[in-house]
């Protein structure tokens, strides 16, 4: 199987879908002629032309809203946010319009749009460029939220998201764009709402999404090698819809859960998982549900301290050990 980057996997997904469906188009700041701020859309403008790959001015509210309007009419916009942090100037369009119009129209309208871009901290760019809004977008019924951790998942989930008839908020990660992984040629889909056990284990479940999955995998290796603890790593992949079954099955097997989350702790994604476990896995648990999340402060600029703010493998290991 070809080994390509997370970035290339996304790029391939766009190329597949642009070729397959003429209603699909990409737009956003710098996506066309500049090849994308993070080169995720590289070469697509040359290949598909200005009708399908569109540079926009720096007007997030307007182009997000334009995407919603176009999607209502049956087009399938894939709208890039240079950073998900910039969505905040256009949240009205995402939450009130993409998120609520179907409901308020009694189901007469749907908004088949993908809003995508990186949503991560850890890149030394300060608080305004480090937000992770998956929790509060998943808090909006009507929106779907996807956070792939690997190149394989990125491509399959992107193709599913573009084909989905609802609005999908697709959150990538600048720190993962260069990661390599095996990715098949051609189109394939990974359904939204299906988690994946990325590592089998019997002693504790590490439940994570996005880059925290990789952190959890690294922690699992240390736990195995140094402490004889076999951790199972559950990658949520999609936040909403959520695959609760896989989470519950894993915890029923391991009887311990440590939630690893680059989201903030207050009402973060991990809060939702913790509530799920409290409600539905209480009798399975041999220890309290523990969490390792981003530290509860705005993302700090200073590099060594910023590293401390996000979960790393050693912190996860320590947290797991504390649960025994």
């Amino acid at each position: 199987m070809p080994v390509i980057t997370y970035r290339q996997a996304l790029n391939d997904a766009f190329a597949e879908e642009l070729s397959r469906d003429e209603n699909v188009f990409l737009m956003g700041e710098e996506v066309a002629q500049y090849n994308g701020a993070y080169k995720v859309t590289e070469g697509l403008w040359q290949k598909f032309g200005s009708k399908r790959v569109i540079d926009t001015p720096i007007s997030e509210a307007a182009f997000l809203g334009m995407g919603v309007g176009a999607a209502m009419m049956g087009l399938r916009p894939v709208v890039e946010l240079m950073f998900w942090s910039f969505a905040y100037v256009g949240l009205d369009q995402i939450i009130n319009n993409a998120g609520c119009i179907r409901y308020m129209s009694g189901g007469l309208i749907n908004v088949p749009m993908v809003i995508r871009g990186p949503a991560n901290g850890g890149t030394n760019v300060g608080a305004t460029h480090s937000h992770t809004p998956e929790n509060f977008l998943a808090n909006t019924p009507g929106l779907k939220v996807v956070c792939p951790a690997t190149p394989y998942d990125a491509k399959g989930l992107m193709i599913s998201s573009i084909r989905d008839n609802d609005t999908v908020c697709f959150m990538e990660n600048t720190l993962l764009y260069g990661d390599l992984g095996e990715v098949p040629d051609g189109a394939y889909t990974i359904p939204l709402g299906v988690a994946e056990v990325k590592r089998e284990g019997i002693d504790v479940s590490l439940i994570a999404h996005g880059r925290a999955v990789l952190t959890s995998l690294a922690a699992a290796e240390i736990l195995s090698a140094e402490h004889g603890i076999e951790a199972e790593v559950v990658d949520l992949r999609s936040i909403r819809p959520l695959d609760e079954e896989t989470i519950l099955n894993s915890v029923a097997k391991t009887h311990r859960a440590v939630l690893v989350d680059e989201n903030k702790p207050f009402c973060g994604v991990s809060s939702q998982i913790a509530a799920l476990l409290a409600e539905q896995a209480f009798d399975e648990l041999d220890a309290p549900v523990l969490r390792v999340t981003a530290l509860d402060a705005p993302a700090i600029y200073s590099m060594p301290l910023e590293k401390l703010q996000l979960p790393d493998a050693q912190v996860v290991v320590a947290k797991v050990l504390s649960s025994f």
Partner: protein
Amino acid sequence: MARTLSLSSKPKKSASPSKKKGVRPVITKKVTKAPAKTANKAPAKKAAPKKSDVKAVAAKKPAPLSKAPKAAKVTKAVVKPAAPVSKVSKTSTDWSKDPFNAKLKPAEKIGFLREMLRIRRFEQQALKHYNNGAMGGFLHLYIGQESVAVGTASLMNGKDEIITAYRDHGHALAVGMGMDECMAELFGKGTGCSKGKGGSMHFFAPDKHYWGGHGIVGGQAPLGMGLAFALKYKGLKGCAVAFLGDGAVNQGVFSECLNMAALFELPVVFVIENNGYSMGTSLERSSAIRHSLASRAEGFDVDWSLCGGFDLYELRANLGAVMEKARTKFRPHVLEVSTYRYYGHSVADANAKKYRSPEEIERYKTECDPITLWEKQLLKEKVITEAGIEKINAEAKAEAAAAADFAIASPWPSEESIFEDIYHEVDHQTEAGQTGRHFFSE
């Protein structure tokens, strides 16, 4: 509220013509169909509200519509509120001869009257039940502005798309939505056009090219642009008409839209329904302008013009031309239409009588009412008789009353319906809709 802002900030300069002398450029370049006349005949502006007592000033100083001479001194040609017809008509073009009107058949003209009367009677009926406590929410009445929606709908070519804000009942009925479904929606009933999930501000009928009904001020503007984008993308010869209020133009996203619409050469017409007020804030207290609200488009190389909205002929002539230009030339346009609402911002608007005088409202009713004007016009043209008008009026009243009966008799939405119409995939029970948990309540 916006009011506190203007209270604490600088007194308005608009009342001081001398300061503005020579400042205002004469912008004629892109004004089509001589709407500048309307603008220049704008009534004298109110004096600037004193910092200390806006309410008192507003109450004491209705726009002195009848004192036309003052208008000459006004250096800011604001279209709000438009000059009463008696002042305009002397200089106005005879819009009935315009190509968009000349070939209208009597039946069509009568149809416009019927549509306007239906909107008015529908809303009056709704108001009655609102005041009885039969419905909740907000009720933003369109009464006084009916000509704008009806004129617009009459110009739609089957491919054109429209979208508006929360003052949306008129547009809904004008494009052909039924009174029953609309009334039932106001009552929150399951038979409502949005199954009781949207309410007064959120009517939609995509099959009639009507995309809402939007409660967030200005939020619909980029959606309208998206409709235009889709039309052009699909190669359809239609345009999108996006309505917004005189208050909504101050939302940042509207400026973003003007830029993008021009940049992408989109077939979109933004229609500013300038009724002079955004809630209790008069235009001059909300907007810094040089010539008009529409003229802001100049900075984005977007064509713009002004037009009176009281005379259906005038509205149709002006809007028809710019819609056609959008369809064929992919030129966006901003059309500022002067109009007036008689009721409060919403029925819940407790301040309805504070920010403008009863006299002002009365003057608009007697001099500018679009329905009365149209009736007079049709009588003059001998297209209809008094009895004919009365018949249509009675039918509209009966239809509205029947709609209320329908709404009252209709069931509430079912409890299960709370979780319907959220995700298309779930509603259609597709594999995607059945994979993973979508809703997180018990």
